[in-house]
């Protein structure tokens, strides 16, 4: 059975082990191959999105902006207010469900290819490699005493990391305050104290996580890494070393009749261990530290190629498949199992509901809140007045004029703005006073209705209920 949760089963030793114990520094060796190419593709894709999307304009504003000050989220043509929280909740459910599904099918695909921790570590490692050289050179450099050259390399590396981290922090904050204004503020030295703080805070976290903690984040800090094991079953695709084929391991030369000597395909070159970003030996079986990055597959495939033996001594496979030595056809047949089908069905249902919800989202939203300070009061002419705060939100991409009316009680009248104008995705909060004669309606609470109607488009109309208090 898999033991991805092994660490939690020994809580007592865990304390002594230490969270950031004197761990052996891992020097991942660089690797090329099919999966490395995929990983780099994902790095490019996710980071082009992250660093680029915030600069994209849309209808005169930032396309993706979580405007905290205005309490409004813009995602391209859609505007969301806190009242639309349900969409965010559903989106979270969809993400969680996809994660379940991907994990059940392909193990830690998320960790290996898409997780920001993996992606930034990959980028930081790339910088490290460019400046300090390959694995052997880095180990040597670390062992050397401080010298002018070492100092120079260190300063270069840390500054490159620092710049990238700051840029990341700046981009992050740029999703919450318009990034173009932020950029101008940087150069006119007029950044707000909290903006500076969050840029540095996020930057520092990136630097620390991707530059120094690396695999320790996955091993000790990530909640997903701890519970992903429960989503695995013996038909989940994981990175597996084929022990039947590889063992007994031992070095041998190309073309040697090693099989006759009782040796397996593994030449014990330990390259798979050297490339591993978490520093484990996959040949010991699946371990919870393995983030599924497939670096060891690429590495071992190269060795196998050199040795003239078939690739795939380490490969994506399932527990059942390795035990029964199945081919791909059989593996795929087992991947499509009830659990996966049920997950997929549920996921598509939620996605369909989500898309339907967004597509039919009303272009207008109205909130009516009774003023808390005054319940009801008598005004000139003996009329009874209640005060309301209206929040009108234009969720469409066009400017609109709205007419506001009130109904529900005999001789009801409204003082305040009857027509308001809102820009695309704009909103406004304002007060209105509603007055009725003292004999209108019953004593206590009466139901009244506010109607807000787009003047150019009769179909965009919202009727909101409110309570009118008659003393």
């Amino acid at each position, binding site marked *: 059975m898999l033991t991805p949760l092994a660490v939690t089963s020994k809580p007592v030793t865990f304390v002594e082990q230490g969270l*950031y114990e004197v761990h052996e520094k891992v020097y991942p060796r660089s690797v090329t191959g099919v999966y490395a190419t995929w990983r780099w593709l994902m790095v490019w894709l996710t980071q082009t999105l992250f660093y680029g999307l915030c600069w994209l304009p849309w209808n005169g504003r930032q396309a993706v902006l979580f405007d905290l000050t205005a*309490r409004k989220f813009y995602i391209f043509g859609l505007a969301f207010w806190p009242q639309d929280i349900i969409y965010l909740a559903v989106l979270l459910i969809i993400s969680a469900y996809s994660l379940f599904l991907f994990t059940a099918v392909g193990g830690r695909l998320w960790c290996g290819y898409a997780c920001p921790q993996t992606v930034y570590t990959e980028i930081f490692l790339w910088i490290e490699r460019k400046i300090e050289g390959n694995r052997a050179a880095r180990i040597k450099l670390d062992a050397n005493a401080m010298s002018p050259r070492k100092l120079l390399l260190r300063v270069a590396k840390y500054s490159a990391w620092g710049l990238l981290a700051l840029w990341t922090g700046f981009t992050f904050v740029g999703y919450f305050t318009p990034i173009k204004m932020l950029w101008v503020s940087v150069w006119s030295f007029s950044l707000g104290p909290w903006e500076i703080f969050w840029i540095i805070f996020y930057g520092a976290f990136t630097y620390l996580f991707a530059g120094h903690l690396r695999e320790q984040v996955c091993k000790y800090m990530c909640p997903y890494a701890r519970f992903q094991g429960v989503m695995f079953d013996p038909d989940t695709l994981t990175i597996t070393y084929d022990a039947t084929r590889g063992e007994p391991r031992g070095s041998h030369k190309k073309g040697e009749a090693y099989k006759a000597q009782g040796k397996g395909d593994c030449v014990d070159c330990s390259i798979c261990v050297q490339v591993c970003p978490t520093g484990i030996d996959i040949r010991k079986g699946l371990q919870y530290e393995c983030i599924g990055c497939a670096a060891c597959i690429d590495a071992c495939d190269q060795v196998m190629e050199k040795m003239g033996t078939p690739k795939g001594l380490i490969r994506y496979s399932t527990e059942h498949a390795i035990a029964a030595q199945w081919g791909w056809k059989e593996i795929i047949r087992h991947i499509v199992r009830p659990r996966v089908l049920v997950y997929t069905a549920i996921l598509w249902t939620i996605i369909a509901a989500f898309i339907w919800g967004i597509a039919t989202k009303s272009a207008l939203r109205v909130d009516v809140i009774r003023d808390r300070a005054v319940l009801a009061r008598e005004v000139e002419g003996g009329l009874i007045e209640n005060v309301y705060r209206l929040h009108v939100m234009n969720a469409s991409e066009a400017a609109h004029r709205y007419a506001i009316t009130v109904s529900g009680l005999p001789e009801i009248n409204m003082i305040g703005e009857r027509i308001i104008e809102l820009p695309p995705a704009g909103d406004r909060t304002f007060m209105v006073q509603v007055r009725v004669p003292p004999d209108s309606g019953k004593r206590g609470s009466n139901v009244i209705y506010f109607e807000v109607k787009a003047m150019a488009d009769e179909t965009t109309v919202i009727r909101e209920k409110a309570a009118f208090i008659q003393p």
Partner: protein
Amino acid sequence: MQNILSVLWPSFLVAGIAEGIFFTLIDPRELYLFGEPVHFSSLATYSIGFFCFWAICAASSMATCYLLRTAQEFKGADQET
């Protein structure tokens, strides 16, 4: 070091969630501090809110850590005598 981090890190995660939920439901402009409406900028309110949540969660984690440790120390003392 390990104790400090195992207090700070989970509380950071939970504070993030708490912050998100709290400020989705509550507009910072509607908050009152000592009977006065909050007059900081929104960004400041959100930030201060986050650190308050973090501090509260950390306090709770710290209490857990402290209680766990005394339990172990008790055990250790028992075994020695």
